[in-house]
């Protein structure tokens, strides 16, 4: 799945070429393509006048970026303290047995990606699942798969 660099460049051009925009630009690319295509590291580096190694460092340091294609549906399971003691691991186990993928992995058909997030600030209704930016609170583990698929 090669993404042509003109498309990437168009996303990059939305923000001014200032080094402090690095993370925001990478997030726009991630938002657009669900991951950071390999080409984007060079394009962003040229656009901001930064070494490619610095852009790659940021792409691998910040956990919200992925360098490998992710699924259409991003399923996030919160593992904040409250969610942990209220059974976040149970949800992860159910998703693993139901979708066959562990956190950080994507299903072969590129439909689902499961990710673990360290606290999304909705602790009042732990345990929390987020499917494509839609919040689900007080998730019982036996409903995890239904929520993941329904979205």
């Amino acid at each position, binding site marked *: 799945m090669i993404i042509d660099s003109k498309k990437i460049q168009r996303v990059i051009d939305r923000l001014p070429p200032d080094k402090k925009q690095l993370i925001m630009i990478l997030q726009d690319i991630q938002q657009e393509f669900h991951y950071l295509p390999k080409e984007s*590291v060079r394009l962003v580096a040229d656009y901001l006048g930064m070494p*490619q*190694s610095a852009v*790659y*460092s940021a792409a*691998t*340091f910040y956990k919200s970026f992925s360098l490998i294609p992710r699924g259409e549906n991003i399923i996030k399971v919160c593992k904040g303290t409250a969610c942990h003691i209220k059974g976040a691991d149970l949800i992860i186990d159910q998703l693993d047995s139901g979708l066959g993928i562990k956190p950080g992995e994507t299903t072969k058909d590129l439909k689902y990606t499961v990710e673990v997030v360290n606290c999304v600030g909705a602790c009042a209704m732990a345990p929390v699942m987020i499917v494509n930016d839609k919040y689900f609170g007080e998730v019982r583990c036996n409903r995890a798969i239904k929520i993941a698929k329904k979205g």
Partner: protein
Amino acid sequence: MVKLQINGKTVEAREGEMLLAVIKRQGIEVPTQCHHEAIEPTGNCRLCMVEITKKNWDGWKKSVTSCLYPVEEGLIVETHNDKLFEIRKTILDLQLARSPHSDYVRKMALDYGLEKSSYPVEPDGDDCIMCYACTRICEVLGKSAISPTQRGHQKVIAGPFGEAPPDCIGCLSCAHICPTDHIKWNDKGQTRTIWDKSFELIACSKCGKKTITREFADYLIEKRELPANYFEICDDCKRQETAEKIGSLVVRAREATI
């Protein structure tokens, strides 16, 4: 000038100097790993920690990395005590678990009576002690070809995508500055390979002896405005040429006097 006390002795230092420089000038041996004069201190290895206090802190003490702590008037510094010994010992103990085969680490650990790490050896360990000397020297060079990638325990020094770094010019500064010789390179025949990237070494136009990489020479020529032809022949042949040039001047001078 700033007056401070190191291990009981009052010493003077220049404003803005770092404690480590003053300590070294006193001939006191403080262990360091990530310190190198050609690069900015970052305080990664923590071994150069010393304990500081002041008269008006009424006994309260703080341990700081001397490579980064600027000298202050009236500072009272202790470079060796039990607490610092414990810190240095534990740090080397941890490093032994990560880099069990590194002679550099093992030698330093022996000074603290450690032959083996008290922690299980890390399966994914290697000799890199993550001191950032290589990435920083490459930054001073102006290329920043390699950098610390990933985060936390998976942190690894590499070029983008762990592949041949596009900005690397094969100058080997990183390999030479690496305290544990973890950065592998080799020159075979015409080519030099480092970070999975191969370079063409300039061959002396006279005797064929290999000098530096073409990319490194071009970089110096462009960045430091050096004449390109300086790089085309090796130092041996340049000395011979110099002798001949001066020799011919001597001969011409002698003929002129006759």
